[in-house]
């Protein structure tokens, strides 16, 4: 008896197919999921999701957290791509709000604004290039 497994992340499809057993790192401990498991929803902690196929071979996928949904014949792993933490999210939110406030407060002439924007674009491009070079070195 097999169970349909879909592992997806927000940015791409990771794996989907049939399995005899799935192991996932639940928040309350590791879960072993066989077909006909009761419907369950849980959060996942960073770790590996192991999928066992018909030939009893295991394949592992690393995930950095996410959500696991179990239906009797269907397992869905909604993996996070980013490392998430409450305070990290909070900082991001503050940053986004600050940017908006800055924009609204900025009532200087359009000229100044255009220049600042151009400078900003340049800096962004520079940063992007630095990032690319770093990646290449790695």
């Amino acid at each position, binding site marked *: 008896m097999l169970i349909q497994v*879909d592992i997806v992340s*927000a*940015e791409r*499809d990771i794996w989907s197919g049939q399995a005899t057993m799935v192991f996932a790192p639940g928040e309350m401990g590791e879960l072993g999921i066989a077909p006909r498991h*009761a419907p369950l929803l849980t959060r996942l902690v960073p770790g590996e999701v192991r999928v066992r196929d018909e030939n009893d071979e295991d394949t592992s996928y690393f995930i950095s957290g996410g959500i696991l949904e179990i239906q009797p014949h269907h397992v*869905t792993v909604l993996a996070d791509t980013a490392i998430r933490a409450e305070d990290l999210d909070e900082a991001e939110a503050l940053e986004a709000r600050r940017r908006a406030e800055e924009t609204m407060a900025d009532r200087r002439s359009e000229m100044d604004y255009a220049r600042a924007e151009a400078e900003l674009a340049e800096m962004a491009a520079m940063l992007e290039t630095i990032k690319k070079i770093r990646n290449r070195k790695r």
Partner: protein
Amino acid sequence: MAGAKEIRSKIKSIKNTQKITKAMEMVAASKMRKAQDRMTATRPYAEKMRNVICHLAHAHAEIKHPFMVEREVKRVGYIVITSDRGLCGGLNVNLFKKTVSEMMVHHDKGIEIDVVAIGRKAVEYFKRRGANLVAQASHLGDTPHIEELIGTVKVMLDSFAEGNIDELYLVSNDFVNTMTQKPVVSKLLPVAGPDDAQLKHHWDYIYEPDSKVILETLLMRFVESQVYQGVVENIACEMSARMIAMKSATDNAGDIISSLETMYNKARQAAITQEISEIVAGAAAV
């Protein structure tokens, strides 16, 4: 008639412009392909997420999360997604038209509006209009990552959880095909569930550790994924709109060049004719 020299320099400058538009068209075409691939790659997550939410709405949940409860609407939130750059035809303008017409409906009912702008064009537009901009994100590039959007979306989610806004809408471009992009407004929150009466059998998930925490996470991820999907789709829209706009610009430049060339030839011919008649007249005078 303008002198031959002026016409020649005009032709030259238009040819340069044409080169640029042609290059932009080709860049947009190649980027569009990648953007479309990315769009299809991110779709499964959004789809699976919707499935889970749908299951959840059908489950006889022990608690109703605030994100799933309809309440009286006093203030609404809009997340508007546009491109960072212009030169993509009427893409952003159409989106703003649609947004404003939607907003007017709320405005007429005396409902206040908060805006979150994603993309530089939206930031500029809502600043100019004097809208209540609560958060923004721009310069996401061609390969946006969900990390860059989390904060921006969280502002709205927090606002909803605190009861500042009672409904949350997402405005973005829907990629129909390369030629057509349609601005769409969709309601993100509250997540609509079916009536209890419609449920055939009562079942519920086992929640680990408890339902509230999981629902919270799940619904947050749901909104984030919808916004992310919107951003990714918008890039595909932007690229294809730009490709079409630049193609027509290149074609127009070609038309102008050919008509200017006719003019140039005529001017040249006229100059030669004049020269000949001057020489003939000079010779006759001797």
